[in-house]
């Protein structure tokens, strides 16, 4: 047990990723699902940063990708919340079980 290495970062990000997936699958509240998606995205970000730092220290690709992911996550959150609000207006509910219109 010496330094904190790549393995530690990857373990954290994997835990974060699966917590996010679990939350996305089990939670019925759409806001919580959205938050779970953010967890998944952040798990990716940690991976990018960690690989960049440990494997290619003199490049910045991973960092740039992380910035892109954060930007896209923000846009996604905005769109998702707009959808959720419209859904609430129509259905008076933000429960994912009630939003089964895609079948029709």
């Amino acid at each position: 047990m010496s330094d904190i290495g790549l393995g530690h970062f990857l373990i954290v990000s994997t835990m974060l990723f699966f917590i996010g997936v679990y939350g996305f699958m089990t939670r019925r509240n759409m806001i919580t699902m959205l938050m779970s998606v953010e967890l998944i995205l952040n798990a990716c970000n940690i991976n990018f940063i960690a690989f960049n730092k440990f494997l290619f220290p003199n490049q910045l690709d991973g960092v740039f990708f992380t910035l892109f992911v954060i930007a896209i996550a923000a846009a996604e959150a905005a769109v998702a919340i707009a959808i959720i609000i419209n859904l609430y207006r129509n259905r008076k509910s933000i429960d994912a079980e009630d939003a089964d219109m895609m079948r029709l």
Partner: protein
Amino acid sequence: MSDSLALLLVPALPLAAFLLIFLVGRVYFPKFSGILGTVIMLAAAVISMATAYKYFFVTGKVDGVYQHLIAFKFTWLPFSETVSIDMGAIMDPISMVMICVVTFISLMVHIYSLGYMKGEDRFALYYSYLGLFTFSMLGLVLSTNIFQIYIFWELVGVSSFLLIGYYFDKPSAVAASKKAFIVTRFADAGFLIGILVLSYYTGTLDFETMIARLTVPGSELTAITTAGFLGVSALTWGLMLVFMGGAGKSAMFPLHIWLPDAMEGPTPVSALIHAATMVVAGVYLVARLFPVFAISCPVGLDIVAYVGVFSSMFAAVIACTQTDIKRVLAYSTMSQIGYMMFALGVAGYGGENGLGFTASFFHLFTHAMFKALLFLGAGAVIHYVHSNDMRDMGGLRKHMPVTHIAFLIACLAIAGVPGFAGFFSKEEILTAAHNSNPIIYWCAIATAALTAFYMFRLYFNIFWNKEYHAHHSDSHHGDDHHHGEAPWSMKAPLIILALLSIATGYIPFGSFVSSDGLALHSEFHLTSAILPVSLAIGAIIVAMLFYRKKNAVPDEIAGAIKGVYTGALHKFYIDELYLFVTKKLIFGIGGTIAAWFDKNVVDGVVNFSATVGENFSDTLKKMQNGKVQSYAMYFFTGVLGFVLLFVFLWDKF
């Protein structure tokens, strides 16, 4: 007028009559249609006779041999460079004889029908059908291509079907027309296969090329004679299948059952189609391919001869017992066509051996005249009596003198009494048979005697026997017997045909029609004529003793030979045999198996695939529930699957 134009006009005029009357005349001038059809037919008859005259006496003969000329021919359906279906007109002695017979008899029937069919519903339709039939028959005899003959062959079948079923409100007529169509259609299937066999080996559909390749030794002839099936060469198979088509149309023995029933049609139609023209198409077909039969396939010719002679005798025996006058005539037609067939069968190619060929066409020609006359005469009688049954007739000679004399002439002609047309042609056939095959000769002699007997049985039963009194005054028409014998439109054809039934016998037929185109001078041997003529006259006398005055002798004789008599009366149970085979065996046993197979196997496959599809789609439908989380689940499962694939199996490939 050039030959090509003339021979284009001859079939085109009846076709025009058909189209004009069928499309326009039926609605706008139904009463006038008969006259119109008759006038057009007259034009066609005049043109065809002029063309035939020109062919026989001016252009046709080169160095004493009648040529095969192609008046016109255009390629209709080319399959390849060498194989095509053409439409054309051939000029040779037999086709020229045939167009004269067809147009002339058709003209007579057109004129006769003006009186006979007067006042019928669908009068115009009747004339349009007559036009269609005449067109098809002319196209048939002028064919240059074996496929062209097949097309017109089917067309005459259709027009025959339409005309037999003309009284379509009568169930028996409907059944008869269906029977005629199905039986001949069955035979035509054989014909088609025969065409395919012959054209496959010869590589052509054209008659002349085909005949040339099948008679002159060469690669095609070697191929077709060496190839075989069940030990019989492909050539024999092909010709026999073609002959099957001819036998169906010409009512030869196993396929004859439709002809007697076809008498349900109007009587003039029987005269035209089922006596004089269409039924001799089979004879014409064999004659068209005659060089092939005679030179390359003598076995086939023997079969033609035996089928012909058997049909001829078989029909003659049945004709002695029938009481429906049209049926008697139908069996007599079958018998006479059998004569023509075996005359072809005993003939050889070229020179004196070709006597049978000449005799066959001679008999075809004279038979067309006197058989049409017999039918038209019978039509006049039926018109007068309103019954087909000879037991309702008798003593009509005083009531209808013209018909009586005409009918008597026709009977004498068919019986082969010297001086009348039938005598000359029949004598020639018997000579040809005598020269080649004693079995056929003796059967033919017996048939000739039977023919004389049943024709005079018919004659005496209609015109003598008992006194005629109108016991039908309460039947169909109130004014039954106020009309006279027959209108002039009916009497005129009878008189013309009666004269021709005598005159046509004196044509030196051998100098026009022969197997190789050379003139054939058949000498007339008095000694060979003695036996058949004395038998015929003896038979006539027997018929006179039996039937001139009503007496008990015929019934006693019938009782004495009860077995044969009952068999012949029921047409030797051939119809019942066919019914047994089709209804019991094919539809009964075969049908049960087929129905089981259809219900279980065919339907089973369809139902099974439907069930599988339905279940599968149900499963698939449940997956698509519209819930975003289950979709995410599928997506995630898929990703996981790929991950596992990449991690554990990627480097394996």
